[in-house]
């Protein structure tokens, strides 16, 4: 059975269906965490799921515009009240916001928690993103235990709704103790990193852990394209019919007992037709 991506690349990285989870996404600044989260939410919106974005670094208008830049058109979902934002950013510019849920003092985690609780009310099969823990903790100094308690409450609320949530953190801004706490709180951890590859930067993603799901642990390369994040294969794979580089999940079809990787169902069909007409000599 072929599964759809819950988060970018999940169909390839996780075996079987991804259980409802709260996931920690760790990665350095600029690696692509925010677009990863927006794509995760958009994947839910197009399936009719309710989505909540808690943002500490962008206003609602900026979020909508940046999503549009990647082809994630959310205006119709906003109209249906499926896409909601808890605005933890606009306090920096005086508090004016187009969102109904504005946190005027993100230093007060209780207020953040109440806004999240209010914003998820009435949403079904929820997806949530908190982008980011680093942004919240940058507004005042938190006791790690207090922060951990706040996050555990949010995780518990999402779990009650059978939802999936991603919590973003930039590791260089925190000490190891807090990161260890965070890894404990969530059901799983996704990691992103960058590597220098000659004159360009190679971006990599891996699933470090997910409770209740079998998954690959290899670092997989990904690219940020104008359609969002595309997780690529770690080895070069080409369609046996059209020779095109297969960048996403291959379409695997068994022909005469042998599995072949195709770029699409169309290529698989063309291959089968030619094989039927030319016989075994067609390879």
């Amino acid at each position, binding site marked *: 059975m072929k599964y759809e991506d819950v988060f970018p690349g999940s169909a390839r990285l996780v075996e079987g269906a991804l259980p409802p989870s709260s996931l920690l996404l760790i990665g350095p600044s600029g690696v692509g965490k925010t677009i990863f989260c927006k794509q995760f939410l958009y994947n839910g919106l197009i399936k009719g799921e309710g989505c909540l974005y808690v943002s500490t670094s962008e206003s609602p208008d900026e979020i909508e515009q940046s999503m549009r830049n990647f082809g994630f058109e959310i205006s119709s979902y906003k109209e249906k009240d499926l896409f909601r934002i808890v605005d933890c950013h606009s306090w920096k510019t005086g508090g004016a916001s187009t969102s109904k849920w504005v946190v005027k003092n993100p230093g007060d985690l209780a207020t953040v928690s109440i806004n999240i609780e209010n914003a998820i009310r009435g949403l079904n099969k929820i997806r949530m993103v908190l982008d980011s823990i680093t942004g919240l903790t940058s507004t005042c100094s938190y006791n790690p235990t207090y922060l951990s308690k706040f996050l555990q409450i949010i995780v518990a609320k999402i779990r009650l709704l059978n939802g999936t949530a991603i919590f973003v953190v930039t590791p260089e801004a925190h000490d190891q103790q807090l990161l260890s706490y965070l890894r404990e709180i969530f059901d799983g951890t996704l990691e992103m990193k960058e590597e220098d590859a000659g004159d360009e930067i190679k971006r990599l993603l891996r699933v470090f852990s997910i409770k209740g799901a079998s998954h690959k642990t290899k670092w997989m390369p990904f690219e940020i394209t104008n359609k969002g994040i595309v997780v690529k294969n770690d080895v070069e794979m080409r369609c046996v019919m059209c020779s095109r580089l297969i960048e996403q999940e291959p379409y695997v079809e068994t022909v005469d007992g042998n599995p072949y990787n195709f770029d699409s169902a169309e290529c698989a*069909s*063309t291959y089968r037709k030619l094989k039927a007409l030319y016989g075994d000599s067609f390879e």
Partner: protein
Amino acid sequence: MGRGTTVAFHSYKGGTGKTTLISNLAALYAASGSRVCLLDFDLYAPSLMSYFKKIPTAYVNDLLNGEVDISRILVDVSAELELKGKLLLGFSSNKKEDVNAIEIKHELKWQLTAMRRFLSAKNQLFEQYGIEHLFLDTSPGIRYWSINALAAADNLFLVMKDSDMDIEGTMRMINDIYDSLVKFGSKFFVVLNKVPGASPIIENRFGADDTASIADFEKQIKSRVVGSIPCFCDVQFSKHEFLWAVKQPEHPFSKKLIEVAEAIRNL
């Protein structure tokens, strides 16, 4: 927007009017605003170039040989034909050496390599050029590039003439080729062309509007006849029929083609 569709026009014998039909249909689609590409895959007896009276800088042959990209072979005739949409053409070379080269390249290794180049070009047409309808004019009979073009198509249209129709040969071709293609996802339809009835031809198996005979014929070939186009003397004996469906839409031949175009669009 979803990926476009590929249709191939094929026949058992030559002279069925395949090129005239496919050119008119492609132009009709483009005239209605669609983005259309018509490629000449009658590599053994090319005729699209003389139909459109064009001399391109590169040919389908060059694409299959891996010498050029699809962008080099396309000729855009939309503006000169004043079409609302887009009509891009790709011609096969009618030079003796190019036709001979295709004839002798029978080994499957080259066929597969060339087919890959074509499929890659097809991806480009859909993804970069936004083509909605890709029309392939194939060689008659069972030859490498009629089979390859048919295998690359979603919908296959077998063009048949009533007057010299070789039912036995056509039925064999349907069993040998079309059945395999249909088994793996193609859809197959028949277009009857040059059907006696509109002109005073007496010896006919069925006339253009003989629906009972068409129904019997459909049972025999296990397919659907999507169009039955009468034989019009002025078209048949025209010095150069050129896109009458677009240029002379009031002519009965054009009206019939417009009906066929609509029937194909609704398949």
